[in-house]
């Protein structure tokens, strides 16, 4: 029954099946890498002049090549295509036949190290797309490391002291940038640093899916994300508050360094570590590492468009002259609540007491010998009401009516607990003498001619804000 129908169906299906079985078989026996290996063999034979090597070339077997690395827990099949990697005759050849550049393989024999331990990528894969894994649809956590960041791989086994002047200068230069651009002002690393940005621990070994790659222009990889976000943070993370912006070259260097911050450790027998000890950072280095991103050199106050507030001039000579070390340290210690200024004490941002002292010493290094003339606040009988009247006329334009400052104001928030706890003498002197490098002009005899009584009244009024703020909080 339906003999013809089924016979035709049977026959067509069988023919189609046969045809596609042949196609499938052909596809299976002629993978991408075989093509490369046979071309390599021809090149090898053509280049081999020495009879012994010519013999070697002729006996080259086309077939799967892989390095099984037990301790490193990986299998690298890169030489299926990069077959000439350890063949000196292939020095001038094109990719993928080319010999490895430099003399790296002398100290890092392929049989012991493989490829992906430095270059990343998917060692098990046997075609270019999936081995290099730079496309999102290859679904591999660590795509191949671009050549310009390759020095970051050296730091997986060698410490930076060894690398400084032996071929991995970029890591050292990148690290310098990392220190001097103040990255840790916002990013924690090993428990120390600010909290505005994400912690950087293990960032170099994080899978690419930790990053939102939507806005990345180049390859959809961690590397491109890092590099592009150093150049234009807000192009990659639209609501980023990152203030540091680098040029392309610096960004490459910093990327190289940041990629060395890894959590996955290479097994011990592969690592080479000199016995150097990092010298404790001095005050200047510490200031750069933690403060400079926001405060720059500290001489001028800046209204910051990202933070929507004014960043104070922390090394204004007037400020340093007026403040004593203990109070300066307290400011750094406690930070400023409700602003971007982190509390830097050991149990918050994680600086040690000693480091805090060094920063204070550095900041006050240029303190001029002469102390400002004492104000003698305690000698005045103060009137908060009149203080408020003067404040609203003279001060509120910069500090805001309730002294909250913030967006659009050139002054700083005076309701802050740290300022509220400040010595009234300090506040009075600041109002009287002003602050160089900021928009705070002297209001006393030298400047806008407020009487000392007026200044004392203002200070008294200012000191009520702690209470007011507290009440406001309760009312909410």
């Amino acid at each position: 029954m339906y003999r013809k129908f089924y016979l035709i169906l049977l026959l067509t299906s069988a023919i189609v099946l046969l045809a596609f079985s042949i196609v499938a078989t052909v596809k299976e026996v002629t993978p991408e890498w075989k093509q490369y290996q046979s071309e390599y063999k021809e090149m090898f034979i053509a280049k081999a002049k020495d009879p012994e090597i010519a013999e070697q070339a002729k006996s080259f077997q086309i077939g799967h090549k892989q390095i099984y690395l037990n301790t490193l827990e990986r299998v690298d099949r890169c030489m299926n295509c990069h077959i000439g990697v350890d063949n000196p005759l292939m020095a001038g050849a094109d990719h993928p036949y080319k010999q490895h550049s430099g003399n790296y393989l002398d100290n890092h024999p392929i049989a012991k190290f493989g490829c992906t331990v430095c270059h990343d990528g998917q060692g098990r894969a046997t075609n270019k797309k999936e081995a290099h894994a730079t496309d999102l649809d290859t679904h591999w956590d660590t795509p191949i490391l671009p050549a310009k960041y390759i020095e970051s791989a050296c730091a997986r086994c060698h410490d930076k002291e060894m690398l400084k002047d032996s071929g991995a200068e970029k890591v050292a230069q990148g690290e310098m940038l990392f220190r001097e651009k103040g990255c840790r002002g916002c990013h924690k690393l090993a428990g120390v640093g600010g909290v505005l940005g994400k912690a950087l621990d293990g960032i170099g070994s994080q899978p690419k899916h930790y990053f939102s790659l939507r806005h990345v222009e180049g390859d959809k990889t961690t590397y491109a994300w890092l590099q592009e976000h150093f150049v234009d943070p807000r192009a990659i993370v639209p609501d980023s508050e990152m203030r540091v912006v680098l040029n392309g070259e610096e960004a490459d260097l910093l990327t190289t360094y940041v990629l060395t911050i890894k959590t996955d450790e290479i097994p011990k027998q592969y690592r080479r570590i000199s016995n150097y000890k990092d010298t404790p950072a001095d005050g200047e280095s510490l200031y750069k590492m933690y403060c400079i991103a926001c405060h720059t050199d500290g001489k001028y106050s800046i209204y910051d468009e990202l933070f929507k507030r004014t960043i104070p001039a922390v090394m204004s000579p007037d400020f340093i002259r007026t403040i004593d070390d203990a109070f300066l340290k307290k400011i750094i210690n406690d930070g400023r609540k409700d602003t971007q200024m982190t509390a830097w004490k050991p149990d918050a941002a994680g600086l040690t007491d000693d480091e805090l002292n060094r920063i204070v010493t550095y900041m006050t290094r240029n303190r001029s010998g002469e102390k400002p003339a004492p104000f003698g606040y305690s000698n005045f009988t103060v009137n908060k009401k009149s203080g408020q009247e003067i404040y609203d006329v003279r001060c509120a334009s910069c500090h805001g009516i309730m002294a909250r400052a913030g967006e659009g104001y050139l002054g700083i928030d005076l309701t802050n607990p740290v300022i509220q706890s400040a010595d009234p003498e300090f506040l009075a002197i600041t109002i009287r003498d002003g602050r160089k490098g900021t928009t705070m002009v002297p209001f006393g005899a030298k400047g806008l001619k407020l009487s000392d009584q007026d200044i004392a009244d203002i200070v008294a009024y200012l000191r009520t804000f702690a209470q007011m703020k507290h009440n406001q909080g309760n009312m909410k």
Partner: protein
Amino acid sequence: MSEQEKTGICKFIENAKNLGCNLCGSYLRDGKPDSDKSRSAIIFNNFFLHIQGVKTHINTLRPTYTWGMGLISLFLLFFTIVSGILLTIYYSPSIESAYTTVKDIKYVVFAGNLTRNIHKWAGEGMIIFVILHMARVLYTSSYKRGREFNWVIGIILLAITFFINFTGYLLPWDQLSYWALVIGANIAKSPNEITDFLGLTQYFDMGSLQKEMLLGGTIPGEATIPRVYFLHIMLLPLIMFIFLGVHFWRIRKDGGLTRPDEFEPKGEEAGLPTKKGGIFPTNKTYGLMELAKGRTPAVDKDIENTVLSWPNLLRAEMAVFFLTFAGILIYSMYMDAPLKELANPLIPENPAKAPWYFLGLQEMVSYSAFMGGIGLPTLALIGLGLIPYLDREPHYMGIWFSNKQGKAVAVQSFIVGVVVLVGLLVATVSYGWFRNWWPDVPQLLITLVNPGTIWVGFMMAYSIWTIKKTNSTRMGAIALFTMFLLSYIILTYVGTELRGPNWDFFWSHDQWPIH
């Protein structure tokens, strides 16, 4: 002595000469199938073929009657078994090497990637074809008159097909596996929605028990893979084979596939074997009165309109086999089975989606984990299983959609179903549900009243209304099944294509805020 030796050698040479013939003959027992008798013998003497009748009704052979759906499902199962056996050679069910061995299968095992693709697509193809087969059985009323329980077995086989696919999905231990496992485990735990409300959890925490049974712990890990592997290659196949055997055996006992009571051969069919042809005397009918109950063809009907299974049926089966083979091979050559990054508990997939065949359920899980994941699927399976017991009208067996009215009911319920379900989904997507309106509403209320339960309630109400209107339970069955089918398709589509990160609605993947 020499005479005997010579005879012995002669015999040996002669036997050697006839080796081919004898091998063939001993295999076929009755020699070449060149007469009706030997053609019959070849069927009932063969272990694999004897599950089929010696003679096959013409209707069974009509391509437009069955569309070969059941057969295709069976052959797909065959391909998953063959490819699966090949995969077990390389796959290692442990947390360290599950992923890497799958990678090795993909990259270095000869035809490994193709084998994996065949395994994957044949397995998932089974879901489609089993459902289509079920649709054919329903729409041709083939679940009646002694076949009720076989329909129930079919439902069990459908459920096993889902589970065996799901367990296979978990084995590569990539991001898909891990997060599907997390979803699966949370669904297993979802009875807590009810027990928490009733205050029973502290006495008997069924949800957590189920979850820990599945995971072998509280999170997917070390202990999970071996147990999922055991389910996938051992327990579930075993159960499946047993039920499959019963499924086939019952078809045979029920007299082969269903056919219309009044079968009018036409065209090519007409004029072929009648009472006068074949091996049976014309003046006698055979029956198995002592052995078989019910209406077997031998009892109730004559041998009219049947042809010998060899070669008619086997030719058809071979054709479907090659068609399936070619189809699965070509599809697998050009579509790679997905394999994502290594499982990483720290990077949740957003959205974490179950495999596509469960996304309709996941859509309902997004309303209520218990109802979407356990309550409604169970209800659906029970509801489907009860169809043959609630509709016992004996007419129109073997006729697609029974009659004109049946066709109308199918079309009607399809249109009504699409409108109501799409409307319900649009409303849910646009306006949210109770939780968005009254944040403090008790979870039990949402569990009981959500778009999923409302839809299921509507399906039931509509089919009962159909029964009332048409005065026929058969029409109710058609309406219910049509709605079940379309809701499976629509919900799966919504879950697969229109849901993005945080299970928010998106018209396409390009609009997703990330990646």
